[in-house]
């Protein structure tokens, strides 16, 4: 849809070969972390200003997480002393023990893990099949379907009509209501379709000459060649389901079916009493509520932190820009 090419008018017609040689030379030097020849050394105040700005940004971005993690490991003494907990003096796992020993949080985590795994699988199956179906050139009628998919970017259904549909289908208060209404993300679909279309046609033709039909080509050639992009799209889907909050507010009334994000809101943002959320050993003094709350925040964040390095490796290069170009 969108086009990222810089304004063509901004690029003067230059002799190709000489120009390209210079550009690649400059690029290579830049990737080796050297200053391009034309860029002057910034003045000292400017350098300091830059460094301070960057340090400030990094601090602002990381501080809340570090603080919350620190509190979650704190003991009653650390928290109730009124002191600032950045490095708990007496680290303890009590808060985590409290939420993992059964009760609401444990159940919600189980729901969210199950939903994320099964939901991502369903979304991947639906998205890859449609993307493949739309990637073959010249299939009669496929263009109309493609326009319908692109139209979904412009015509998004409203909240109430979607709600009424889910209710009419009898899906209220069921887990499918959290997956099926958002089964295929139009953006992910376009990413995959573009990737499939860039697989060299010769490969597919060769398979066809060898007698493979479109189904075999999909499983034996297209999918194995797309492992990396499939992994990224799956990660995005998984993160989406894990983080989803609003759809559960709309569709799930039975609190025993709540995913972790709703439990998080109930006990952390609304400060509901934690006694029902945890199974505490009655002989021991309970951990301070604040540490339990923060432990819930941390366990809801950890899965994201675990997949983040993989996500980050891919989304900066290739995958997204491919989608933007198309």
């Amino acid at each position, binding site marked *: *849809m*969108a*086009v*990222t*090419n*810089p304004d063509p008018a901004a690029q003067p017609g230059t002799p190709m070969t000489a120009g390209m040689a*210079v*550009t690649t030379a400059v690029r290579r030097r830049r990737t080796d*972390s*050297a200053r391009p020849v*034309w860029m002057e050394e*910034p003045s000292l105040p400017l350098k300091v200003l830059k460094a301070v700005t*960057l340090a400030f940004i*990094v601090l602002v*971005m990381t*501080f*809340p997480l570090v603080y919350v993690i620190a509190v979650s490991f704190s003991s009653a003494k650390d928290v109730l002393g*009124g*002191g*600032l907990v950045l490095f708990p003096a007496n680290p303890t796992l009590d808060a985590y023990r409290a939420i993992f020993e059964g009760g609401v949080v444990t159940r919600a985590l189980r729901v969210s893990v199950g939903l994320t795994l099964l939901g991502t699988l369903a979304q991947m199956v*639906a998205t890859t*099949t*449609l993307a*493949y*179906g739309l990637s*073959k050139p*010249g*299939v*009669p009628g496929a263009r109309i*379907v493609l326009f*319908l998919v692109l139209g979904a970017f412009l*015509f*998004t*259904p*409203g*909240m*109430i*009509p*979607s709600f*009424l*549909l889910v209710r009419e289908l009898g899906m209220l208060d069921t887990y499918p209501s959290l997956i*099926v209404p958002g089964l295929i993300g139009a953006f992910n679909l376009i990413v995959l379709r573009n990737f499939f*279309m860039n697989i060299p*046609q010769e490969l597919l*033709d060769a398979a066809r000459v060898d007698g493979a039909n*479109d189904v075999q080509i*999909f499983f034996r050639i297209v999918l194995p060649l797309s492992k990396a992009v499939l992994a990224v799209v799956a990660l995005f889907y998984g993160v989406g389901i*894990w983080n*989803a*909050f609003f759809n559960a507010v709309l569709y799930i009334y039975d609190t025993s079916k709540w995913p972790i994000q709703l439990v998080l*809101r109930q006990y952390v*943002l609304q400060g509901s009493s934690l006694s029902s959320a945890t199974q505490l050993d009655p002989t021991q003094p309970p951990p301070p509520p604040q540490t339990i709350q*923060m432990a819930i*925040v941390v366990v809801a964040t950890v899965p994201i932190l675990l997949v*983040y*390095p993989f996500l*980050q490796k891919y*989304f*900066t290069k290739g995958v997204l820009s491919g989608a*933007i170009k198309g």
Partner: protein
Amino acid sequence: MATIQQVRSLDTFPQANKITLRGKILRDRWMYLFILPGLLYFLIFNYLPLAGNIVAFQEYSPYLGFRESPWVGLRNFERLFTDPDFERALINTIQIEILQLVFSFPAPLLLALLLNSLISERVKRSVQSIVYLPHFLSWVIIIALWQQVFGGNGFMNQILRNQGMDTFNIMANPDIFKPLVVVQAIWKDVGWGTIIFLAALTKIDTQLYEAAVIDGAGGWRRLRDVTLPGIRSIIVLLLILRLGSMFSVGFEQYFLQQQAVGAEAAEVLDTFVYSRGIQGGDWGFGTAVGLVRSLVGLMLIVSANWLARRAGEEGIF
């Protein structure tokens, strides 16, 4: 792209030129199997609900359903002009959107320029991997984190208390709610927003910078006359997309904080549709609000696109 591949596959199978439509459909019969489930999904869950907007012309009641509910013509739309709660939600939305446009739209651009000016790839990568992270956290987690730092019993107030100073709860103050949500939105997505600008910045031909330096241009001059013109089309494009969602600032961020600051400050159009339509049972009016909002959004995006094309930009369609 499609045409090139078409030509290529026709080369490989010259007889494909003569294939009839029937033959093509038969040849591609498996492909329809791949297309069908996804097509059904889009028809049912994206296009069928569009028809559900007829509720906007009804005094809809769940017990009566679509067929039995009385038709009221445009009465639900007339109420847009008289309902004080709607007016408040609309004003809140517009105020927040203007703040977003002024502050959170340029923020990623500034950060991208800063990152782009870094010479050391290592520093650049590390900063990037830190600023991208909050985009992947849910709003529930983000509000929880913020509450823990700025809330009544948060880190900041602990410091103030230890110093014997007055405490104040930033997270529960209706007067500063609007700037607060804008700062939160920047915190979450400023890094994510840089990706597209950084991609555009690396596409600028470095020869232009060399030529500018030879002509005696300093840093500011290069920024103004090379860098910004080089990414102008992407800025325009993002602005167009932004206009399309002008009247939807989002749901979760506001819904989650309504309890703390009250509906007076935190009711926006998205939450209004929910609280009035679904919670309040005023289905027809809620749907009318949602429908008008998406139609206005569509009109804005189409006219912004038209304007951009007239001004010689590429636009999005």
